[in-house]
């Protein structure tokens, strides 16, 4: 259904389509934020969602996660329509969200927070394995295991939030504002870990303000403006796109000339 519209994406036959969004409109009733959103995602891909404040990036992620009900359109996940499913069922199907601003459970320890991520899982053995995997990815969380999350630094909190989302053994991981309030060194570390997560076969959608780093690590990018997708394509191509460079990266060839 949606495939005919996505002519610009090169199809690789061995890859499996994991998510496709078709003519999606969403927002906060009565205000519509997203209009006619159209995109798709293959298994194991890293997709960067770019755009200024208020472009609708978080709204799109929250709609895919199920926190917001779409006004119209379809969300097809692993060949089934999920736009009517409540959040907890989507988590069970393997969609996990790292919400904007982390939203950790303040009164609980790091370990308890991580275990909350496995809330929909029943197999204790698998949960223990997953916890080990999260500790391997973020060794600092192992050190902080018994600490209340309020005592963590910003970067550690983000690690805890990503770790918590990973505890549900997601197939599709949605990360909102990954670098929000974090220093460049911490962001680089997180992006390396995200690469490792991707290599384990998790499909990623990452919302980023820092367009440069977002596009260096991602496979593809979508640019949102005023609730519509205005540009999409291969991450490397977007990085070299003069319009992107001008709008988001702050450099374009005319700058010096104009100043003089």
């Amino acid at each position: 259904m949606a495939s005919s519209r996505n002519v610009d994406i090169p199809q690789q036959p061995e890859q499996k389509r994991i998510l496709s969004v078709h003519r999606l409109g969403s927002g906060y009733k009565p205000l519509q934020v997203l209009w006619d959103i159209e995109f798709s995602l293959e298994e194991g891909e890293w997709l960067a969602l770019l755009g200024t404040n208020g472009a609708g990036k978080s709204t799109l992620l929250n709609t895919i996660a199920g926190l917001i009900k779409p006004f119209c359109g379809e969300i097809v996940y692993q060949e089934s329509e999920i736009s009517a499913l409540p959040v907890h069922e989507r988590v069970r199907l393997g969609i996990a969200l790292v919400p904007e601003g982390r939203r950790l459970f303040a009164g609980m320890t790091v370990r308890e927070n991580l275990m909350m991520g496995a809330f929909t899982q029943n197999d204790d053995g698998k949960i223990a394995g997953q916890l080990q995997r999260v500790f391997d990815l973020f060794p600092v969380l192992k050190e902080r295991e018994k600490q209340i999350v309020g005592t963590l630094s910003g970067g550690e909190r983000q690690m805890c939030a990503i770790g918590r989302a990973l505890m549900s053994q997601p197939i599709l991981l949605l990360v909102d504002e990954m670098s929000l309030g974090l220093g460049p060194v911490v962001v680089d570390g997180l992006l390396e870990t995200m690469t490792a997560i991707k290599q384990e076969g998790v499909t990623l959608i990452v919302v980023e303000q820092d367009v440069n780093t977002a596009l260096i690590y991602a496979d593809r990018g979508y640019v949102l403006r005023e609730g519509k997708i205005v540009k999409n394509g291969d991450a490397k191509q977007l990085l070299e796109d003069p319009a992107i460079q001008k709008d988001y990266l702050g450099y374009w060839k005319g700058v010096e000339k104009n100043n003089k």
Partner: protein
Amino acid sequence: MREKVVGLVVCVAAGIFLACCPFFLNLYWLRNLTNIFMFAILTQAVNIIAGYTGYPAFGNVVFFGLGAYSTGVLMVKFHIPFAITILIGITVCLFFTLFFGIPVLRLKGHYFAIATLGLNEATRAIVDNLSDLTGGGMGLSLPLPTGDVGANNRFFYFMMYGTMMLSITVTYLISKSRFGYGCRSIRSDEEGAESMGIDTTRYKTMAWMISAALTGIAGSIYAYWMSYIEPSAVFDMTIAIKSFVMFLLGGAGTVIGPILGAFFIELISTFAWSYLLNYHIGALGLIIILVVIYMPRGFIYFLQERLSLRMFANSINEKRI
């Protein structure tokens, strides 16, 4: 670890002591303790919905009234035995919560608190006007329990005591369970909890149902104990306020804190009442203000801090030796 053992031993000892009380205390104190147990149940019920789940059910007293009137009406008009009326009272409370919980629990914070208050006032008005069934503002006189006064007092003492123990056990189980973690995550961050795959509507409603059932049992026992109920006495907002004060004073979201709060307030109020008849409300208010200033997070945290400080000091001394 040692603190936990000490705490557990103290609690069990207190429980056993209270179970033995009827055999040596006079009826005045037995009655006082029964009243304290009742408030402990109400406070623990508030704790489950407000302390663990973060929904300040200010009008929880509505379930007290529903329980009391279920027992009253069924015993007076339908001659149903007391034990069965308790079960029916619980059922009424559960259905009430199920029916109103789903819309009302969509509200948060103050709005939720006010909505529950509205539920209580509306229910009171309905009970007031269903004169044929409930006796309206005239109230309802229940059949007096037969037998001698001492035995009856012990009966109600143990009924309230048992229900209080039940409420503590239920809260303890909640605090250790998956369900409890779900509730705590809702309190901490509802949207976060939702994105972790917790069916928040179901969890909130269940927590309120548990709270409602416990409050309802206390209401049922109260009705038979007092043998006279009227809408303004059982749908009384002062009961709600009192149980909230006890809950906050004792320590929100802990198993034993609310019970301590109930004991503290009721004992102080009894003493203030018997020694300072003219000033007792003022004295009680003053004590509450002082406690709030010096123990803002409640007794249980105060005790914990003190205990752990002492443990810490001990551990340093041990190392020196």
